[in-house]
């Protein structure tokens, strides 16, 4: 049952995604990419559980920890760099 529910969510999210982002001005292509890239760092949630919930297996914990580092780079780097870019766009709007 849970499996079906998860697939259901997946399907709806896919359709939603396409609807949400169908028309994007080319000016925003890069920020959209780097910003959505940061969102893909959500895998950090899985990484935290993998590193924190695997007591008894150092190997599993180690993999989880490595995943945390990578995902955090993805998240922090992605959001910050997107904000940096969008700040540049903002500036011109005032002119």
């Amino acid at each position, binding site marked *: 049952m849970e499996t079906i529910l998860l697939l259901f969510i997946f399907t709806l999210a896919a359709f939603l995604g396409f609807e949400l982002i169908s028309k994007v001005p080319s000016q925003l292509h890069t920020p959209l990419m780097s910003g959505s890239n*940061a*969102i893909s760092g959500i895998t950090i949630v899985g990484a935290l559980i993998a590193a924190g919930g695997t007591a008894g297996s150092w190997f599993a914990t180690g993999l989880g920890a490595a995943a945390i580092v990578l995902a955090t780079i993805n998240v922090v780097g992605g959001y910050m760099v997107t904000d940096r870019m969008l700040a540049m766009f903002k500036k011109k709007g005032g002119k």
Partner: protein
Amino acid sequence: MAPQTTHYLVSPALINFVYIICSVLFIIGIKMLGKAQTARKGNIISAVAMFLAVVITLFDQKILDAADPLTWAILGGSVLLGALIGLFAAKTVKMTSMPEMVALLNGFGGLASLFVAWSEYHYNMVEGYHPEYFGKSAIIATILIGGITFTGSIYAWGKLSGKISGKAQVYSGQKMVNAAIAIALLACSVAFVVIGDFHTAYILMIAGIALSLLLGFAAVMPIGGGDMPVVISLLNSLSGMAASAAGFVISNNVLIVAGCLVGASGVILTIIMCKSMNRTLGNVLFSGFGAKAGGGQGTVDGEMKPMNIEDAYYVLEAAQSVVFIPGYGMAVAQAQHTVKELAELLENNGAEVNFAIHPVAGRMPGHMNVLLAEADVPYEQLKEMEEANRILETADVAIVIGANDVVNPAAAEDKSSPIYGMPIIEAFKAKTVLALKRGKGAGFSGLENSLFFRPNTRMVYGDAKATINELVGKFKES
């Protein structure tokens, strides 16, 4: 999931509820990211959602049950380390290096998801817990997508940063080899899911990891630098799909939703990029575009006529309407600030100045926009292809800065040209075309650009930045 009589500090229902809130915030955030006025706020909202998701995850009973001080130190240390690296990278990266940065981040996301799935299965084995077919399918899917994303991105990063040749690398039988890797990977994956024995399955999983890493390299190898906007968009999509697949591994809604949104946005960008080149995704991925010399190159009549800076200055000085057409060469020369300076001087001189931006100019979607925004070029002057072509009909001068294939008239005229059918910026319509170019070589696709041989085109050889600097100097003298 521990259904015993555990006392929960935070109930799983509440955690899941917070995940729903996070999902909603991600959806709102990404929607706002698609509109110019709201983009920055959207990015912040999605960052808040991420923060919230991380914090509530720390109250997951799995972590609370297992975690001792050492584990907490590992969690905290890993987050801190990642955050510092991410912070440093985001603060110091040059805008011209943005494609590399995005490629690397894509790769890290993919590898992180791979590690999550690997860790999960390893722990399953230690615990002696046999996941169902579906769980195993999710594990191997995450590994597969994550692995391809990782090495594909690393290879793309190498190409973009010039660490390896940006040219398409092809060899005979390449398609067969790649197909063989893909089939082997698929076979491994199916066997992993079906075989119940832990040892055999674990070996198959390791083989799956190795093959998916190999396939990532192999798949990006035959793709040339000019096709990078497509590849980066696609890898972006895959990094999201990997996260989504990891969501199935740990039965977590927010991973599924957020990953799926990224997957969709990446696919949409990929489609836009392919359309801008009038090519199918299959053609971009598998054709080894630009690697083969000869064949359908078309002979170009006439000769390239050089012009010195002095004369170029007089042409610009008299111009009423000037259109800049930037390409990857502008990024390489880091010429955006100098270009902006020249544009301002031209405006002060009474000319109307515009920038014509082709969707695939540069090495990632929106590359030129980012660079020109950094140089403070007013947004109103950045014209998308259609509008730019209207303006070019009456323009006095078109200045092509390091753009090549996106202004090649062969795309419109020469049926035998490999880029035939690709929508271009019609620079040739301007009264005079000044093409700023380092040397006489062809573009990434290896094609001669017939624009450079037109009677109204003048070649201004040299480093784009130096050339424009000299022009700026001339304007200031007068």
